[in-house]
């Protein structure tokens, strides 16, 4: 089989898979190279499933707002897989006056960008979610936020892209990009050399060493986040939850289990290169969760896991063509919130790769925006 495609994508996370889908739908030949043995084995299958606008940086907010208006509600029909998308709102909870201050700042910033989000009282929060403890003083409330199943969403983009003719190779770890006549052209792996007219780097944290081979750098650090899942129970509530104290976040899934993201405070000190849960995080998460939801005390935790995020210097992604290396496109640095935004990002990357007019402006997310003090 030919080792050439119009577009080569490095990394089959949700960003790579969604981009492959939008390109294949346009009839473009696509080849996706994935380093690990399974599709979506990075952050994309390990995240908390939040499809959130509230709390986002104004530079990426319009993209996720577009996705929530135009893509997420139809994704199930479009991809032929139920990605378990719920749009039942996001409650960000506060228990102290200091928490409420944090929430007010976040809320005002989003309102200025035209997002429907507001502060509500503890009583109003309990009307929305009656299981909340009385210790909740107030919350920010964004009714159009929600969550989806990241495992299914990632694999659904892969499945549909593959059906439309996109070629995926797993276990094909990219070592290097090579230029021919000044333009990015070849991708070198352990076993092979591939060629593409356009090359999209969507390899999460690993994008950095790959980009370095053509002299481009994106300032990011790896950060290990941890998550857990409970046994399944009857449906209780389907809002996405977060807190001003950032001590946990999460939601109940279609399956009935609760998926909770944890925050022990020790994340930056995870053992380098080891994608395993720590011994302290799940307990810290349980303390956090139970202080807002005492009714969940008897719920059993059945599984915990960890995943790396590519924490970018200014906490928003790079989604950008690289003019100094023609043919090269970068999509990395999603910094722990790249799941909810992935469908519109895939659409935009397919536009960048085909040179079509962009649906949304990406100039705030350029690769060369980082300036030293």
């Amino acid at each position, binding site marked *: *089989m030919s080792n050439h495609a119009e577009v080569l994508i490095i990394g089959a996370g949700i960003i790579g898979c969604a981009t492959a889908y939008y390109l294949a739908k346009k009839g473009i030949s696509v080849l996706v190279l994935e380093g690990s*043995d*399974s*599709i*979506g*084995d990075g952050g994309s*299958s390990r995240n908390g499933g939040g499809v959130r606008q509230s709390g986002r940086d104004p530079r990426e907010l319009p993209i996720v707002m577009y996705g929530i208006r135009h893509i997420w509600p139809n994704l199930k029909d479009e991809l032929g897989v139920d990605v378990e998308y719920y749009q039942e709102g996001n409650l960000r909870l506060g228990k102290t006056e200091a928490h409420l201050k944090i929430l007010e700042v976040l809320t005002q910033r989003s309102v200025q960008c035209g997002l429907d989000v507001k502060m509500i009282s503890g009583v109003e929060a309990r009307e929305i979610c009656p299981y909340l403890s009385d210790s909740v003083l107030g919350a920010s409330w964004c009714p159009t936020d929600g969550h989806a199943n990241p*495992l*299914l969403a990632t*694999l659904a983009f*892969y*499945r549909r892209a*593959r*059906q439309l003719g996109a*070629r*995926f*190779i*797993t*276990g*094909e770890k990219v070592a290097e990009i090579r230029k021919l006549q000044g333009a990015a052209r070849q991708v070198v*792996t352990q*076993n*092979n050399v591939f060629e593409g007219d356009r090359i999209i780097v969507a390899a999460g944290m690993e994008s950095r060493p790959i980009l370095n081979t053509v002299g481009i750098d994106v300032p990011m650090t790896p950060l290990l986040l941890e998550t857990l899942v*409970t*046994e399944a129970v009857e449906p209780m509530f389907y809002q996405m939850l977060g807190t001003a104290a950032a001590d946990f976040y999460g939601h109940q899934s279609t*399956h009935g289990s609760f998926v909770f993201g944890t925050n022990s405070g020790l994340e930056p000190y995870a053992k380098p290169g080891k994608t395993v*849960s720590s*011994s*302290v995080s*799940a*307990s810290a998460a*349980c*303390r956090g*969760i*139970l202080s807002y939801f005492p009714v*969940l*005390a*008897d*719920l*059993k*935790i*059945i*599984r*915990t*896991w960890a995943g790396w995020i590519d924490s970018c210097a200014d906490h928003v992604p790079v989604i950008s063509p690289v003019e100094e290396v023609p043919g090269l496109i970068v999509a990395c640095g999603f910094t722990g919130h790249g799941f909810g935004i992935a469908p519109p990002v895939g659409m935009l990357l397919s536009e960048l790769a085909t040179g079509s007019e962009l649906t949304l402006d990406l100039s705030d997310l350029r690769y060369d925006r980082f300036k030293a003090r």
Partner: protein
Amino acid sequence: MAKDRTKEIGAFAAAPDDNLIICRCEEITKGEIRSAVHDGMFTLTEIRRYLRTGMGLCQGQTCSRLVKAIVASELGVTPSELEPAASRAPMRPIEMRILARDLGGDQHE
């Protein structure tokens, strides 16, 4: 090992035992597992994430060998060529109120 996912494995053909329940915790049938392979799910990790096999209360302790055999046969490989999906903590389901009490160090109750 590099695997091209365009590998031709033929169309899904229904079989008389497709309704057999393989993963009892999550009630996943043999037909669903076979059909997922034809949807492009070629590893046990992908099958698990796509269907929830082995994600229930027993965490795959009962069905993982059966799932492996079914996927291998559908792909036309030997079961030993398939990597098992990862096992994860905790060993047994544990209540949040109990886990919350583990403060680490010497602060155990």
